[in-house]
Structure formats: C-alpha cells, structure tokens
C-alpha cells in the first residue's frame, strides 16, 4: 500500500513540474514541444554535449555531497560557494608553484583543495560553534570574502604577465590538467571522483558511528549530548568535511574545466546544490539523477537562448519551479502521511 503511494507521488513529482515548465514556455511565447526537443538535443544530443552535461554534473554532485553532510548535522551551510573557491585557490597555488609529473601534481592539488575547503568550512563552523554566529550569516560573509580574495589574486599577485584583467590567471601547465578522452571536454577522472565521494559520504553518514552521531546531533542536539556526544565537535566536523568535499569541486573546476583560476570559478553550483539536496529530500541516492537533470537544464538553456532567443536565465526559472513544485508535493505528502497509516520508514 505504501509502495503505491510512493509511486503516485513520484509520478506527480515528475508530471507537475513538467506541466509547470510547459506553462512557462507558453508564457514566454516559446513552443513547448520544440523547447523540450531542444532540451534533449542540447543536453544529450551528441557525445560532446553529453560530456559537457557531465562536466556540470561533477561540481553539482560534489557540492551536494558536501551539503548533505551539513544538513545531516542540522546546519544550513550557505557557504559552499566560498568553500569551492577556497579549494580552487589552494589547488591553483599548487598548480602554479610545483612542477612534477601529472599524477603527483594532481594528487597534490586534490589534497590542497581538500585542505583549502576544510579551512573555509571550518571557519564557518568555528564562527557558529565558538562565536555563536548563525551559520547562514557566517557562510554568506565568507562567500564574499572568498570572492574578494579570488579577484584580488587574479588582478594582483597572480595576474597574467602584462595584463591585469578579471579574465583569469595564466592557464596551468598541462601537467596540472585532469586528463580527458579525445574530443570530450569532461574528464572521466573527475566524474569518478564525484561519484566516489558521494558514495563515501553516504556510507559515512549511514553506516559509521561518527555519521550516526552527526545525524543524532542534527536531529536533536540536546538529546544527543545526553548520549555523551560532544555536539559542538560534531557540528565542527560536519563543516570541516563539507568544506573539504566542496573544496574538491573547486579542484575539478580549476583543473578539469577552466585549467586556471577565474573569478566565477564556483559557478553558483553551491546554491544550486541546495536545491538539489532539498529535492532529493536528503536521500542521497536521488542526488545522482536530480543533479544530472539540473546539469541538463543548464546545458539546455544555451540551446534555448541560441535557437529560441530566450534569455539564459530561463534555465534557472525552470529549476526553481521544479524545486517549488516538489517541495509543495512533499509537504502535501507529509500531511497526508500523517493522516494515513504511517510506514516504519520515518525519514526526516
């Protein structure tokens, strides 16, 4: 009986946003069918485009993995953007300073990115735990600082010879690039990294004693402390881990996408990931397809812009509608669940 209910909601969860998106297209005078066609063409129409979709998928997956950690600890980590940037800056530093073979440089960049992100996440965590600063404000503030820092580096100490422009730093040496396959821009290594990290994070949260304590802290800090859990330490841990994972997104952005440091290195993925995790209802396995869909919409909006003359922000509108309608549905589902037999599942 519960299964049928679940399927019904899944069906509605697909149908409602699709219909809503169609209405949006009608509203902006674009033919919905053609737009849908362009969506599939734009995102999956050729191996290149598929590759490009995956290229966006990677940072979305990493940022979502990061967020799911802090969400499990009951924290709104708005600072993912800053943590991505910090990871990218740290990785760029390594790429600029060290000359070695590709495996060595890339490993060093990954480690540096992890540490950079952890420092940035840890700062937000410390502000929260020690300073009593709400993590939302702390995260936002640190995002600004990170953006400022990256612009300063690009315009100042790391500017290209002779020109100081916000276009970015000098490209890295090829040894510091993630390897790609012929004709594709996406690096299989970064895809593997992102999927591996997601699996690791889900394993950590659901199977380990540390993950369990972290979730207990998120659900009820007072009761958790009665179980002997140092809740402050676990909050901090969640920020450190999330920061580290977000830092990895910075590494792939710098080393696999731009091959240098650019001001918009975080690409807004930190914010988009919040929507993805909300949509997935904090259930990790759903992150894979949802992030892929988001990546596809981002790709499709290029096509909508080129072929239908629609503004590129339309992709964002569609993503927003998707989230809103699913949240509405799940709210409705929670209410109807309360009034119907309750399954033993009991998720957040």
């Amino acid at each position, binding site marked *: 009986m519960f299964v049928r209910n679940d399927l019904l909601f899944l069906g509605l969860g697909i149908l409602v946003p699709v219909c809503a998106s169609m209405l949006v297209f009608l509203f902006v005078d674009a033919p919905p069918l053609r737009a849908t066609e362009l969506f599939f063409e734009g995102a999956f129409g050729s191996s290149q485009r598929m590759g490009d979709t995956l290229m966006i998928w990677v940072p979305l997956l990493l940022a979502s993995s990061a967020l799911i950690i802090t969400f499990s600890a009951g924290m709104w980590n708005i600072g993912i953007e800053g943590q991505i940037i910090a990871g990218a800056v740290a990785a760029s530093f390594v790429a600029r300073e060290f000359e070695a073979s590709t495996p060595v440089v890339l490993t060093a960049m990954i480690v540096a990115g992890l540490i950079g992100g952890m420092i940035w996440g840890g700062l937000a965590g410390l502000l929260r735990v020690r300073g009593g600063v709400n993590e939302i404000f702390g995260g936002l503030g640190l995002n600004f600082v990170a953006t400022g820092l990256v612009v300063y580096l690009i315009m100042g100490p790391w500017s290209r010879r002779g020109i100081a422009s916000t276009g970015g730093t000098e490209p890295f040496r090829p040894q510091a690039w993630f390897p790609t396959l012929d004709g594709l821009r996406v690096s299989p290594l970064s895809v593997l990294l992102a999927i591996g990290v997601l699996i690791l994070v889900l394993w950590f949260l659901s199977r380990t004693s540390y993950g369990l304590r972290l979730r207990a802290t998120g659900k009820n800090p007072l009761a958790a402390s*009665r*179980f002997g859990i140092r809740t402050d330490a676990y909050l901090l841990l969640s920020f450190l881990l999330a920061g580290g994972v977000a830092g990895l997104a910075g590494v792939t952005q710098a080393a696999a996408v731009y091959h240098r440091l650019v001001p918009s290195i975080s690409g807004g993925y930190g914010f988009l990931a919040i929507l993805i995790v909300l949509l997935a209802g904090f259930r990790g396995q759903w992150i894979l397809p949802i992030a892929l869909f988001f990546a596809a919409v981002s790709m499709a909006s290029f096509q909508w812009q080129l072929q239908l003359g629609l503004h590129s922000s339309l992709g964002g509108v569609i993503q927003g509608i998707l989230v809103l309608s699913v949240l509405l549905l799940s709210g409705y589902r929670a209410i109807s669940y309360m009034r119907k037999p309750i399954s033993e599942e009991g998720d957040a």
Partner: protein
Amino acid sequence: MSLQLRSITKTFGPIVANDSLSLTIESGEIHGLLGENGAGKSTLAKVLSGFVSPDSGTVELDDEQLKLSSPSAAVSSGIGILHQEPLVFLDFSAVDNMLVGSPRDGNHTKDLAEEHLLKICEQFNFSIDPLIPVQKLSVGERQQLEIARLLWLGARVLILDEPTTAISGSQRENLFQTIRSLAEAGMSVIFVSHKLEEIQEICSRVTVLRQGRIMGTKHLPCPTSDLIDLMFDRELEPQGRKSSDSLGSICLELCGQKVTTHFESGKVDMTFRTGEIVGLAGLEGAGQRDLLRSIAGLDDTVTEGVFFRSRDIGDDSYIHRMQYGFHYLPADRGREGLVDGLTITEHVALASPQRSIATDWKLSREESKKIIDKFSIKGTPESVPASLSGGNQQRLLLGLIPDNPTVLLMEHPTRGLDIESAAWVWKYLMSLTEEGTTILFSSSDFDELMTYCDRIFVFFEGAIIQELASVEATTERLGSLLGGVK
C-alpha cells in the same frame, strides 16, 4: 447531549491500535479511559480530536455525524483536547495564544478573547493575566489557558490525555476542581490515565482498553482490583525494598554545594552509599531536578565539592562523568531523552561505546531486539520514537541505560508507565543496586517513594527541608512536608 463512537478502528501497519471501539459518553459525565502502555488510549484521543483519521468508524455528537478531518475541524465540531504539555507560543501573551488558532471573524477579536479569558478565570478561579507572556506561566496555568481557549472555541467535549503527569499536586487539585465544574456545566470529559487512584477520584465511569479492545466499562467507585483484572492478564505481586543494612561503602559525596542556583540557602552536605536508593520528593521545581543535574554535571553553575569514590569530579562535565558510570535519565523524553527520526537500533548504537569507524549494525540490531524483548517495548528495531506510545518511549529510555552504571540519576523513572510495568522496572532497578549501582530519583508518586527508597529527601522552595528514612515516611507526612510544613 451525548458523544457516540461507533466501531472506531485505527491501524498502524500491523498494529491494531483501536479495534472497532464503540462507546457512548453522556453529557455531564467524566469518563475515564484506562489501560496499560500501548493499549490505544492516546490513539483514541487523537482520533476524536482530529489528529489522526481512523481507518473506519464514525463519531456522533447529539446524533449528528462529525467530520474530524483536522484538529481545527474537531474543535469547531465541539471536541477539544488538552495535551499533557499544551503547545503554546512562548513569546506570545495569553490572549494572543487564544487568538492564534481561532477563526478570523467578528466573534474572535482580541477584546472578546480578553473578556472571555477574564470571565473563565473568575468562573474557575484561575489567575491568568491576559497580557502576560506565556513562558511565565507554569505548566498547570498553561493547561488552564488551553482550557479557556477550547471553551472559547466552543468545545463541548474535553479530552485530557494524562494531564497530571507534568503538574504539581496543588495544580492537580485545581485541575480536578475545574474538570468537575465543567462536567457540572454539562460538558462531557474524557480523562485518559493509567493512575487508578486518579480515575477512582474523579471519574463517574471508566472504560478499560487492552490491546486496542474494550475490556469493559464500569461505574465508579468500584473495587480497584476489578480494574486491574480488566487491565492485565496477571495478578500483581506486591514487592518492596529489601532492608538497607546491606549497603556498601560511600560512593558519592557532596560538600557544601548549592543545590539550586535560585536559592542561596540551599547548601548541602550529603553522602550516598553504594547500592542505595534515594528518593527526592517535592513539588515540581522545588530543587530536585537541580540536584540531579548538578550531580550529573549538567549544571554549569555548580562545579565544586562533588566527590565520587573520594575523587573530586567537580570540574568534570557530564560526558566525562559518564565514563565513571554516571547516567542521567531526563523527564522530558521527547526533547531531551530520545532523538526522533532515529530508529531503536540507531539509539542502541548511539548508546553503546563502540569506537570503531564502521558500526556493527547487525550487532546493534540484535541488541535492540534484546532490549525490546526485555523491556517488552511494543515496537520493532526499526521503530522511531514518534511511533511508540508514551509508556513505550519511557521503556526505551530505561532500556538504553548502560550496563553496570555506578550512579543512576533519574527524573520520574516510571512516569507514564502502567503499574505492572512500573513494578517490573523497579525490580530491574533494584537488581542493579544489588550489583552496586547508587540510585537517586525524583518522583511525585508517594507510593513509589515509600516502597523503593532507603531514604527520602524532601525539597521545598529550593532547599532540602527534611531527610526521612523510608520507614518514617507516610503519605500524610510527605504531603505536609511537600507544602513546607515540618
């Protein structure tokens, strides 16, 4: 006027919480609902008040079928429920709390709410300032406010689910007085409890539930043993505390420490022996909780003069003291005791001291099955606290006490347990003391205090005003001491 329930059935998965219950409650009647833990009392109360919808069955008030699709629909049909601790908006004033859930129309304005509240206060002898923020009210006063609100919204049937567990004795008297006047004014009252004396004291009829079914309805007063027969299969064997000369060496000492932060006068010196059971009596908020929490290391303000086996542990936090075998059992199991959203198995894993990275979930699951068996919890290893009845949550809390605690600090250890389980729990706790556990617990149940304690401390306004050996304690003596009369 009468309230008629016709074959109400409510299942949760495989559990039949209410099994086609039919019942008639007359106007002016105070009808008791009695039953062991998990019998389905709260579920029935929730069905009537619109918090859960039944699988089948109907409810009629004055021969008119009601649609109880939501709590507000239930209230506007005339059925209101008073929760144990009424949900209120703490920052709001009393009147604003009345307005929050009321329909927006000309009959429900702030002025009218204030007027109504004052009228009710006069009628029932409440003293609630309409403009006072609700957080300044005691739980008993919040209940009064909630009753006033429900009356204002037109409730003709009032359901009270274990209303006396969180309030003091005098507040209880007030509440009972109010309930009686409400019944005299023609309201129907449904009173849920598993305290037999309370049911005897206030109800005119009682219906006993067992495993979701009605076992019988009795006119009161009737012999208490009849009710017990209906509630349980088995006879209760009375048991008491062994004599206390087998007590061991001194295990815990408090020297010159303040019992509460509010009352300077409450300095104490005391010692507790291994295997001893000490009861803390007193009105709610008289200082028992502060003592328990400061011994547990949860009260930051008290850091001096706590000695455990002659070792100064005053600076150690609760987490630290847990390593010495201290364990604190809070009264508020929902907010402080259990983590909602985590399963019983996950609770067991949290409570067990494994430090390896990967949790052994199979082991935790086995362990949780054992606890479920041992404490006869009605649930599965996958149950979350929200799906357990109040008494079963308490059992889980007790089941999570680690093996061989040295000092067990408990607030109301058997609150919410039916008498049979309470007796069982005490048998278990006494077996712990034989292994060397020292127990300190607060309780508002005189029988519990007199039956199981070696010593009783009576608290009044933040200080201990009397120490009694259990043989010296009588109900009268405790009663007057609670009121500060030596």
